[in-house]
């Protein structure tokens, strides 16, 4: 079972929603030899601003450099390391499992236990949608493995601070 890397950090990054910004951020990581474990991007309620959740890992000095280098990009509005703060993190996975009629009830029970959802079904397979933190998704996948997982698609992690938010796009 994959355990989250001990030096893993979740960075919440607000950026201008403009041409080329994703390339600048991704290029910064590759050009400076930093790691991206996952990255997810979407527009915020302000159409001019996008939010990125970047999961990375490294020693404290490296993470500090990543934050500083991100801040150097003209299109980066704000960088916040959520790791040490109270936050909620979620990932969404879509999993396609081999499943004939004899196994269906069994698998649906697992889906139920994990509070996942069945989103598609055919005579030979089942597609499941699950939301949760990394551990929960991994546990579900472990349970589904014996039936034969045909395909997994994951969103990468997104995260948000618990409680009040100071600014609109905090």
């Amino acid at each position, binding site marked *: 079972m994959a355990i989250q890397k001990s030096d893993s950090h979740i960075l919440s990054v607000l950026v201008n929603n403009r041409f080329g910004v994703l390339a600048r951020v991704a*290029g910064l990581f590759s050009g400076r030899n930093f790691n991206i474990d996952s990255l997810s991007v979407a527009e915020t309620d302000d159409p001019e601003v996008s939010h990125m959740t970047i999961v990375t890992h490294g020693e404290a000095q490296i993470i500090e450099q990543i934050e500083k280098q991100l*801040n150097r990009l*003209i299109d980066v509005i704000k960088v916040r390391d959520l790791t040490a703060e109270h936050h909620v993190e979620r990932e969404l996975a879509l999993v396609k499992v081999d499943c004939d009629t004899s196994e269906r009830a069994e698998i649906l029970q697992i889906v139920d236990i994990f509070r996942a959802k069945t989103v598609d079904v055919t005579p030979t397979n089942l597609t499941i949608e699950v939301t949760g933190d990394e551990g929960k998704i991994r546990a579900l996948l472990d349970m589904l493995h014996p039936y034969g997982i045909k395909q997994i698609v994951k969103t990468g992690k997104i995260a948000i601070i618990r409680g009040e938010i100071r600014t609109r796009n905090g």
Partner: protein
Amino acid sequence: MRGAKILVESLKRAEVKYIFGVQGGAAMPIFDDLYDAEGLKLIPMRHEQGAAHAADGYARATGKVGVTLATSGPGATNLVTGIATAHMDSIPMVAITGQVPTYLMGNDAFQECDILGITRPICKHSYLIKSSDEVADVVAEAFHVAATGKPGPVVIDFAKDAQIQESAFYYPESVNIRSYNPTVVGHPGQIKKAMDLINRAEKPMIYAGGGVTLANAHEELRHFTSKTGIPITVTLMGLGAFPETDPLAMRMPGMHGSCCANYAFSDADLVIAIGARFDDRVTGNLERFSQKSKKIHIDIDPSSIGKNVTVDIPIVGDAKNILRDMNKLAQPAQIEPWMQQIREWQKKYPFEYRQNGDRVMPQYVIEQVYDLFPDAVVTADVGQHQMWAAQYFKYTEHRQWLNSGGLGTMGFSLPATIGAQLGRPDKTLVNINGDGSFIMNIQELVPAVTMKLPLKIFIINNMYLGMVRQWQEMFFQKRYSAVDYHDNPDFAKLAEGFGATGIRVERPEEVRPALEQAQKIEDGPVVIDFIVDEEENVFPMVPSGAGLDEVIRGLA
């Protein structure tokens, strides 16, 4: 007004005086509108790399934003080395490239390339203009970004259909970028803490870099030094920020720096870094670098702080503001025993060389240049001659020394000298070049001759790619792979062919008369080809990976 014309008008509003460019298909409307533009002069160069370096040289010499212009595709890619050079040394520059029309972009059109993709890691920021409505705003933002905070090059890629599209011209009065607000004023608490540390130090030293020049903080630095009496080393990028003739000057640090500066790093109990970034050419082996000292680091770029060494007191902000605040709290340092040590090192280990028979020694040439042109603005290229020009010429004035320090771009200096001369018509421009680097952008003699610029171009010609040859001699058993330049052309004759004055010097007694002759030539460039001792090495030298205290003072 069409987009190209809006660009030209916007450049005028941004107070651009010169634009260095090379013509080409996707930029033709812009060149057309520059043809009769008033108050903004187009300087046609012969290669886009030369155009970029000329804009860079103009920026270094004046502190203003340099502007370069090229067409799409190969024109744009030829700018790349020039943009990267400016980026590494934080030089304010705006590079404008023509781009194929928007309806062809992405189709592998003739002379199309993704120049924004190519330049993304080597510029401070970049823009694509797809509509003439955007032009004025983009130009205003680009100049703001290039010149403020930690300066740097900004690329504007301008699609050809937008160049001919009509829009109303309106230049914004001010620029406000929500995501870009550099810190310029130093934190008072940090400044107070730094001054407490400085006042308590027994062996303090100042380590000043190119940031002092970029911030125009030279006067504040001199004030701080004279008030405290703390000895100072100025990096290759910072030369001119503090007079090298001052008794407190320990001269340049690092790989080919003075023993005094390097020993001082090893012994100091406090290093005050101002606009310097603890580059590997300065620190040598980081494990052994200045271990006994606390570090104060003043820099406008937070990412420079703590990148290479652990810093005790970081101060983010503009060096000029911070030094001004520090000067209010500065007092004379009680460090006489330390100063005695410094003076002893200064006396014992000056930069020195040995005469080899009747050869022209390269260091001797620089000494004579310094003697005859002490007030000149000096540009250097990259290699051994650059180090000798840094060691044997004593810079005393702000922006007196221009060189490619970070990227180490050979071929930089001739075009940079052109830009610098246009920016500083009041000054004599001396270009100290190498035989390898001179030929890398030799085509730029053409515009220098055309404009009758009185450049003094001095080639330290040792018939080798000398710095590499030195490393091969010391670390590669004298296997001189690809450095033998004995097939060099006769540079004096070549200069004559270009319409410049060419002089060849082969004997020591010819050095001074040739320089005196060059001094008198006012109607165009003069090239003196100094045929120097071929295998002279640059010393002192801290070998790559060694500590500063392991400096080699010379070969036995």
